[in-house]
């Protein structure tokens, strides 16, 4: 009864969308549906890609549906088991495990996606999409992190505005020169942003821990391994930014990206998706460079959105879906995606073109892909919260760094165990 009810509700939710798609298709045409979440630039990019695809394949109709991010995962999860919804679907790579286990997506057809070619064509992340020798999804776009700096604040602090920090020590040193306070000691301009709710938890997890000589997880991502010397050093470095170096405060100006955009922060770590917003910011003089190194070691965090064919697509629909997916991950499509959304191509050839590598804005992010790691999240929100809490326990409750790291690692290990036991 549970299941029937779920199906009934899901059917009601997507019934309208399907009816819409059905009436729009002409006879003999194969109609497939593509789903993604709403993000204006992405919607524009997909619309353009579909228009181009239809020119090449007049017998395939592609219906493009998008939903607010907040509802997206629930809608997809409800629709596919009910036999409704998308034939080709965009997913966050961290969700793949669940979808493969529940057989909601099918292995990619070897004809269009030869298994041997996958590893050559894509960055190593593609490994995460392989189960029992078969690939279940292709990455289309990648996001990585980089360091943004405010050139005007650099000049005001007597620093060379064209020389952003290259090491962690330099970064701290620059930030200390930039930070400004009022007569009561309140920060009015941050040397650098400290904001765990933005990208900093990725920075600690995949960048700082590795740079201090450790690894956040075991090779199979089943064990949390940051309750280590490296993990403690990483958290210590992070909390010291506020407590010892006092280059900023956690939550300064509510959102770190707002502080940077308002010209109130000298240094800010953020993802490639921030480029669009910053380019439209008038009066802000900024640059972007690779994340700072430590002892000559660099690291980065990359996250991926992938496309997969759902188990709903069978027969001619499956063929059409595979064709569309192949088109979506062509080099030309990826270049268009980069131009429209600022997200980096997941195919090496498309990403590492000389023009992209030398690009003043995309370059640092693309170079970062070379040494980037992707966390195999089982529940990104919960795992993010565990690190947010680890920092809060030290900053707000004066817990020792060692205890806080230990507590975080235990909590995250339990989360992983619970997930894999299911």
């Amino acid at each position: 009864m549970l299941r029937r009810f779920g199906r009934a509700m899901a059917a009601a939710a997507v019934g309208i969308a399907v009816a819409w798609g059905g009436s729009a298709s002409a006879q003999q045409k194969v109609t497939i549906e593509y789903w993604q979440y709403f993000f204006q630039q992405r919607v524009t990019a997909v619309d353009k890609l579909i228009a181009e695809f239809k020119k090449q394949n007049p017998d395939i109709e592609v219906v493009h549906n998008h939903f607010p991010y907040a509802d997206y995962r629930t809608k997809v999860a409800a629709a596919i088991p009910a036999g409704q919804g998308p034939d080709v679907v965009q997913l966050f790579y961290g969700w793949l495990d669940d979808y493969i286990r529940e057989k909601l997506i099918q292995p990619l057809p070897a004809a269009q996606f030869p298994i041997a070619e996958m590893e050559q064509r894509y960055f190593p992340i593609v490994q995460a999409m392989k189960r029992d020798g078969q690939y279940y999804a292709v990455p289309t776009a990648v996001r990585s992190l980089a360091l943004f700096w405010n050139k005007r604040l650099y000049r005001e602090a007597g620093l060379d505005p064209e020389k952003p920090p290259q090491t962690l020590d330099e970064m701290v040193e620059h930030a200390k020169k930039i930070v400004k306070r009022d007569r009561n000691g309140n920060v009015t301009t941050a040397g650098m942003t400290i904001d765990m709710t933005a990208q900093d938890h990725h920075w600690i997890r995949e960048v700082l821990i590795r740079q201090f000589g450790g690894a956040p997880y075991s090779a199979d991502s089943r064990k949390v391994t940051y309750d280590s010397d490296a993990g403690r050093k990483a958290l210590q470095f992070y909390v010291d930014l506020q407590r010892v170096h006092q280059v900023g405060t956690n939550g300064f100006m509510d959102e770190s990206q707002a502080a940077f955009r308002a010209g109130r922060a000298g240094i800010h770590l953020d993802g490639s998706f921030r480029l669009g917003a910053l380019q439209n910011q008038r009066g802000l003089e900024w640059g972007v460079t690779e994340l700072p190194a430590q002892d000559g070691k660099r690291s980065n965090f990359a996250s991926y959105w992938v496309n997969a064919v759902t188990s709903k697509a069978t027969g001619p629909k499956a063929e059409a879906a595979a064709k569309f997916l192949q088109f979506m991950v062509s080099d030309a499509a990826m270049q268009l995606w980069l131009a429209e959304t600022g997200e980096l191509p997941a195919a090496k050839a498309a990403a590492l073109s000389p023009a992209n590598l030398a690009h003043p804005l995309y370059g640092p992010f693309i170079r970062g892909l070379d040494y980037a790691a992707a966390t195999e999240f089982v529940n990104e929100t919960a795992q993010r919260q565990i690190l947010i809490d680890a920092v809060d326990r030290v900053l707000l409750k004066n817990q020792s760094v060692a205890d806080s790291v230990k507590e975080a690692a235990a909590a995250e290990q339990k989360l992983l165990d619970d997930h894999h036991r299911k």
Partner: protein
Amino acid sequence: MSGLYGRLSIAGKQAVWAWAFLALPVLFYVVIRFWPTADSFLISFYSWNLLGTPRFVGLDNYVRMWSDPTFWLVFRNTFEYLIIGTPVSIVVAFVIAYYLDQVRFAHGLIRALYFIPFMTTAVAMAWVWRWFYQPVPIGVFNNLLSELDLPTQPFLRSTEQALPSVLAPAIWAGLGFQVVIFLAGLRAIPESYYEAARIDGAGKWMILRRITIPLLRPTVVFLVVISSIGFLRIFDQVFNMTDGSGGPLNSTKPLVLYIYETAFQSYQMGYAAAQTVVLFTILLLITLLQLWLLRSK
């Protein structure tokens, strides 16, 4: 056909029409409210991630809840919202209504000013307050404190201050409604009682204690129940003022937010349903208590 309908009495015909008009809302409530409610009781005995087939686990979800420290912390927070929120809002609303009742000048305007927050979207209001609470240089409160050379406060960035900080706008938003209800209650007390009391030489304080407050009892009971349910279900303010996390360190997380996280971020529908059952039970008990209190007089 017309024979069957024609043979009905007038009362019977009225009943047929009443049910005809009621059919739609009844159907709506059964499908949208009662069925899912019953279903969530069922789901609470299953382990289900929304994607796969639900698996029957008996009382596992309830056992887990019993030994989940976060659940108990969240439970405590929820009652903290209730225990601080309800008395404070009732007393403040009564004081405002009591004095507003005696004000003739610009009475309507003042009443409207108190009512406006009640009509404002909770989300918009939560964000405005969130910005009020920010540290220097953007927070209004801290800028003021800093100007006066007083120590600035962490507000939402403190495990002790965050909950009252989130609660304040929730109380403020509900105030308008409560003031209006109190005003109606005050106006409903016959003037003759006051006259009689004054002739007997009763003072202001005596009148308030012996006449006004006892006669407002039904109003107070109603408001206590309505605001209790409101505080037990607090969500919008917390979600928007704490980045959806109920932080820092879960210090502001109410039960409803925990249910939301469990269901729609961790996709543990069974565990979330079990928590919902607990919340449902609490709300039911409070409603029954209200019915009992109102009936006893």
